[in-house]
């Protein structure tokens, strides 16, 4: 025994187990009380003969002190301690913290699991959370009630079951159910690979924060919780206000780690016999040093078994057993419904913590099982994020694996973009005095979702805890845009460890109400940050929606070609040549240049049939490479067939005719160049209506 501290802790615990105060031991050892106190606090170690006497007094074998053996644990040592009512007559008719939340199973799953995530011990591995719904009856129920010292509690319940108050009604219903059905529903929440409730009985530490205190949260800056309200939901989920706790510590306390057990009961003010009680009661070993207050004890396996608190493995973590569990919303009443509600709640809030890149561990693994007297009713279901949140899970996985793209191209593509969050200045500069980052780029992931999805076009927002803080509907999505799901990762969740990520984390946490289900104006926000903080949050909220809209809009731009339906109607190609044109055309021209330099031509004409005779002007033009083609005049025109000459220059074609022929000779004086020097053509022009 080289460590005086170990001895002191051990001695203190043995005294508690015996229900013996330090003063009493001092008296029996004939030493001063200060000396005992010095031993217990580890400032000094008793001499050897005193140690022998101590062993005797405590009823231990000689040498027990050297090996720090325990005084035999008898459940008889365990008692209920009820906090007396205030002397000033003040009465609490319930735990105010419990009223801050809806007490339904979804909220419970959310808050409890969040605590487990925050308390993850080995960060390289997932924290495992198991929900066990267990309805017990018969012998199993009696054994449980015995271990619970139910007989000592009944009077308190009777007194507290006052149907005129909210809490009282719930208790009354719980009692009634227990008596009528002779069965009790237990909901156990175990986490593995978590710190467990370590730390001293009353001082600062995880144990006291959970068991002893209200509104105390012992959490790091990136945790999901910040008010310590979450644990109230655990008690609120019990109709009897009763929760038993069994914790395996990651860091030993008093040299022990396994089966640190305590029960806590939250009852409103009540009068039992002549005494009035108020507030919490504890099931544990009486602490003589604190006037009989019950404190946690290191239970043996048998006790733990009868209290239905046996843990599945030695992995550190805590089990909360909610006695008389119910769904406060009243929706889930049967075991099966509650099982479903828990699975759904876990999937909804924690799918992101359960997603991981290939070949890596997620942060969380959660499962739900339902039993009746030890028989499986609903086999253990491990919550599978891909089953409940396929699109969002795909988005997050793509982000982890770095397989995101810049533009929506396929049905399972995940687009990644950023949303800017302006960071306001703190009212008080942090001690370090370093400059605050002014902005943080949150990451927005967006992916198409399938037709099965009945709630598409949502953005779920989260920070480092990967818990869904809020879900926002993207309104005004362009009609016909792909249905999508989006995930917004802010703060440390972006994978960044730069100072802006931590600043954003702190800022957003301050913007969360106790339920952690929104980013908005809170008292914390206005207390911690300079003016403009609320505007920054609102800008951020707007920006994420705009960015999502932009992504689904830009994804529609396929090409410059525009819609195919329109493309076909806007062709600029030359029109197809009509086999039979709707106007008279020159079919063939033959010509020779006469000796006097004039063109002598014979022209065949094709005519579309019509009643109304065509009247056309034959034209002779000299060809140029570009620009207008100079016209030459006719010296004479001679109709050959199917036409007649009108006004000396017009050809009037026979009504209903199909072909016509005429010959002509050009007027040499009108030639722009000599005929040999240029190609020429003959064409038909319509007469001007005005001329006729």
């Amino acid at each position, binding site marked *: 025994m080289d460590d005086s501290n170990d001895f002191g802790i051990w001695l203190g615990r043995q005294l508690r187990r015996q229900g013996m105060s330090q003063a009493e031991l001092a008296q029996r050892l004939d030493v001063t009380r200060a000396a005992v106190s010095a031993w217990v606090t580890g400032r000094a170690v008793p001499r050897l003969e005193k140690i022998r006497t101590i062993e005797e007094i405590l009823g231990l074998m000689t040498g027990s002190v050297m090996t720090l053996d325990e005084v035999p644990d008898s459940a008889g040592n365990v008692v209920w301690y009820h906090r007396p009512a205030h002397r000033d007559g003040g009465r609490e008719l319930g735990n105010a913290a419990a009223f801050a939340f809806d007490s339904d199973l979804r909220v419970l799953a959310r808050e409890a699991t969040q605590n487990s995530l925050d308390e993850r011990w080995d960060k390289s591995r997932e924290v495992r959370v198991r929900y066990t719904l267990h309805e017990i009856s018969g012998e199993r129920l009696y054994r449980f009630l015995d271990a619970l010292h139910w007989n000592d509690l009944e009077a308190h319940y009777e007194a507290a079951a006052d149907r005129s108050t909210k809490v009282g009604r719930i208790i009354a219903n719980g009692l009634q159910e227990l008596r009528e059905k002779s069965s009790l529903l237990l909901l156990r929440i175990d986490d593995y690979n978590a710190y467990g409730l370590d730390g001293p009985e009353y001082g600062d530490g995880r144990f006291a924060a959970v068991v002893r205190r209200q509104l105390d949260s012992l959490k790091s800056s990136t945790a999901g919780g910040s008010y310590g309200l979450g644990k109230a939901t655990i008690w609120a989920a019990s109709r009897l206000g009763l929760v038993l706790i069994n914790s395996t510590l990651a860091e030993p306390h008093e040299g022990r780690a396994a089966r640190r057990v305590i029960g806590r009961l939250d009852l409103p003010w009540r009068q039992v016999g002549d005494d009035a009680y108020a507030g919490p009661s504890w099931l544990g070993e009486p602490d003589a040093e604190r006037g009989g207050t019950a404190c946690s004890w290191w239970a043996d396996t048998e006790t733990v078994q009868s209290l239905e608190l046996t843990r599945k493995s030695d992995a550190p973590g805590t089990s909360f057993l909610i006695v008389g569990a119910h769904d406060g919303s009243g929706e889930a009443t049967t075991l099966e419904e509650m099982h479903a509600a828990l699975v759904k709640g876990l999937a909804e809030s924690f799918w992101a913590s359960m997603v991981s890149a290939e070949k890596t561990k997620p942060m969380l693994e959660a499962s739900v099982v339902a039993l009746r007297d030890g028989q499986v009713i609903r086999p253990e279901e491990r919550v599978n994020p891909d089953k409940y949140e396929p699109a969002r899970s795909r988005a997050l996985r793509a982000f982890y694996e770095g397989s995101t793209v810049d533009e929506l191209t396929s049905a399972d593509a995940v687009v990644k973009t950023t949303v800017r969050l302006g960071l306001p200045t703190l009212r008080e500069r942090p001690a370090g005095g370093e400059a605050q980052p002014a902005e943080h780029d949150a990451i927005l992931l967006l992916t198409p979702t399938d037709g099965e999805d009945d709630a598409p076009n949502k953005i779920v927002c989260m920070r480092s805890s990967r818990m869904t803080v809020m879900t926002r509907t993207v309104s005004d999505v362009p*009609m*016909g845009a792909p249905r999508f799901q989006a995930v917004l990762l802010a703060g440390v969740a972006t994978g960044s460890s730069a100072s802006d990520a931590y600043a954003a984390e702190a800022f957003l946490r301050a913007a969360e109400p106790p339920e952690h289900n929104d980013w908005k104006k809170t008292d914390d926000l206005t207390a911690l940050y300079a003016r403009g903080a609320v505007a920054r949050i609102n800008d951020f909220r707007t920006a994420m929606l705009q960015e999502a809209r932009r992504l689904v809009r830009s994804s529609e731009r396929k090409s410059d*070609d525009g819609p195919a*339906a*329109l493309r076909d109607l806007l062709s*600029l190609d030359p029109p197809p040549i009509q086999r039979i044109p709707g106007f008279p055309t020159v079919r063939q021209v033959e010509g020779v240049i006469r000796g006097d330099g004039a063109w002598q031509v014979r022209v065949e004409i094709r005519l579309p049939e019509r009643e109304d005779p065509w009247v056309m002007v034959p034209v002779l033009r000299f060809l140029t490479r570009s620009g207008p083609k100079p016209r030459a005049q006719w010296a004479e025109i001679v109709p050959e067939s199917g036409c007649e000459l009108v006004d000396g220059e017009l050809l009037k074609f026979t009504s209903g005719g199909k072909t016509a022929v005429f010959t002509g000779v050009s007027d040499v004086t009108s030639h722009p160049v000599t005929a*040999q020097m240029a190609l020429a053509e003959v064409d038909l*022009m*319509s007469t001007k209506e005005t001329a006729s």
Partner: protein
Amino acid sequence: MKTLFPYRTLFGEISLEVKEARLDGKLLPLTMISVMERVVALHQIERDDWERARVVFRMRTPEELMKPDEWADVACAAVLAEKKTNLRIVTPLKRQPDGSWIGVIELHRDWHLGQAEVEGLVTATVDGVAGRVIARTERHWTVDLQVHTPTRKKTVKTLWADFASDDNPYLNPYRMDPWAIEAAGDEPIVYLNSGFEGLQFILESNTRADRAVQDTLAGQIATDCWTALFNTATYAIDVEDDQPQWPGGWHESVLRRMLPDVFPNHSPDDALSEIFERRSAGEGGGELQTQILHAAIKQARTSKSLGTFIRTLRTIAKEEM
């Protein structure tokens, strides 16, 4: 053939083909050259900074050309001409041992605007006149600097744009409109308002159910487009020596497509004169507008799509009864 030749010309046909093309010495992929369409597409997205293109042409001529005592001083050339820039480059082709003629046309990027036409010519001395064209290729080749697929198919460009966006200030005045038509400049553009609720959805939907609405809507847009383009094109008609001239470019394409419907009994040239006269006579009213709308509706095939749409509607109405 309404053309008169005042001298003897080559009887057989000549053909012109592109052997290869290079941008700054790098061979152009053959996918950029279409023999069917006779187009060389020089616009490559990956290489936007080329300066010189060299296109190798090969001409094949009928045997009669080289028969002794048939033709004198035969020469072959490829002539590149671009209407817009009025640029014309004649490149002599050299006779090869196999009887074909080969030459390289060089294009400098900053000499051209968009499309250049290349035709093959054969010249000879006829009747003592040197360099007379005795044959030319029937079909031109087009060297297009602005397309990256070798196709002649030209359509009016349609672009999705958010009319309300700050990026498109010129569209802001029309922010409430579903579409806008820009008929100015080198290229007409139909802007479709992506900010207009549902427009993109309907126009790009692939479901049969939306088909009828889609076609009707497309028809409506196209009708507006053709009407606007036609009216713009009529103002592009110039007159030289009292003769209206085809304006070239898209204006000409629009006129050539629509004039036969505006003036169904007129030859294209006549129709061109007619529309020009009506315009300059200030006769933009009544009857002509009716004809223009008729031609636009025909271009947009509105009658068919609208008919289908109405039938669909009535079917739905019956089902709901």
